């Protein structure tokens, strides 16, 4: 990348030679915004580190004496970087984002779940008050299986095998299971 102001080669979001900021993308890709590869397997520390580095370059305080345009760009970068960090740090949001481009399920529509699955969730919720321990046990097993499934799908995708099309259905199930677990009496 080349600086838009002085045409110097760039190694970060801020030009080392003239201090100009790279214009923030209108539709930022969240991994790209942090300078990270699109991967499911990424450590929280790596995300924090990338966020810290880039935030330093784009911090609005550094542009207090700059033009209004550059000050606005700095603010926009800050918002984008914060959003990227917030979404990518959460494994479920990260998985949704990689599979669908959105960090959360759609309001309606979305993958069709089998009637048997909804039935199972409904029955578990019916039983939640009377046998919370048994329900927690079953739900934990459901969750472990979904986790293993997702782990497998993403690992293969990162090796260049298969695609992420089965992911939304798994994540959708996960939502019901997590919701069930959250509603269980303590």
């Amino acid at each position, binding site marked *: 990348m080349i600086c838009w102001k002085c045409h110097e080669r760039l190694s970060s979001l801020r030009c080392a030679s003239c201090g100009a900021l790279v214009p923030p993308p209108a539709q930022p890709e969240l991994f790209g915004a942090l300078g990270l590869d699109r991967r499911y397997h990424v450590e929280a520390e790596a995300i924090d580190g990338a966020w810290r580095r880039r935030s330093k370059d784009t911090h609005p305080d550094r542009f207090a004496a700059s033009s209004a345009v550059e000050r606005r760009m700095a603010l926009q970068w800050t918002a984008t970087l914060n959003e990227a960090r917030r979404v990518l740090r959460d494994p479920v949001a990260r998985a949704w984002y990689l599979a669908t481009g959105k960090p959360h399920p*759609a*309001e*309606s529509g979305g993958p069709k779940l089998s*009637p048997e699955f*909804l039935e199972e*969730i*409904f029955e578990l919720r019916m039983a939640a008050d009377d046998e919370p321990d048994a329900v927690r046990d079953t739900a934990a097993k459901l969750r472990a299986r979904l986790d293993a499934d997702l782990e497998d799908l993403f690992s293969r995708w990162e090796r260049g095998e298969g695609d992420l099309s089965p992911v939304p259905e798994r994540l959708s199930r996960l*939502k*019901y*299971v997590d919701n069930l677990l959250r509603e269980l009496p303590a």
Partner: protein
Amino acid sequence: MAYSDKLIEHYENPRNMGSLDKNAEDVGTGLVGAPACGDVMKLQLKINDDGIIEDAKFKTFGCGSAIASSSLVTEMVKGKSIDFAEGIKNTMIAEELALPPVKIHCSVLAEDAIKAAIADYRKKQAERAATPSE
């Protein structure tokens, strides 16, 4: 967030909570989920041969708005025709209960549940028509 009196009323005193015999020929059962939050709702309709809804029951594991939506919708359809029930839109429910935008999906759940219950009833009727009576 301020909720409407009507919503609070239905939430605190839900009408038609419970269940009907899901194996009965004249009962249609709809079981649906909200993908955005992971809540589930079961709604059942008892429908007579004239296509009139004689009874409606629900059980909802969800937020207050979902409970109020299912309570309201069961009240709306009781004594009415299947056609009327099929015409119910979530926007009618949302408006009636004055749901805030973030709670619209809860009323969608109620609309989906009614539609699913009717579809189940129709399937049963078609199966009954297809099996020769003994």
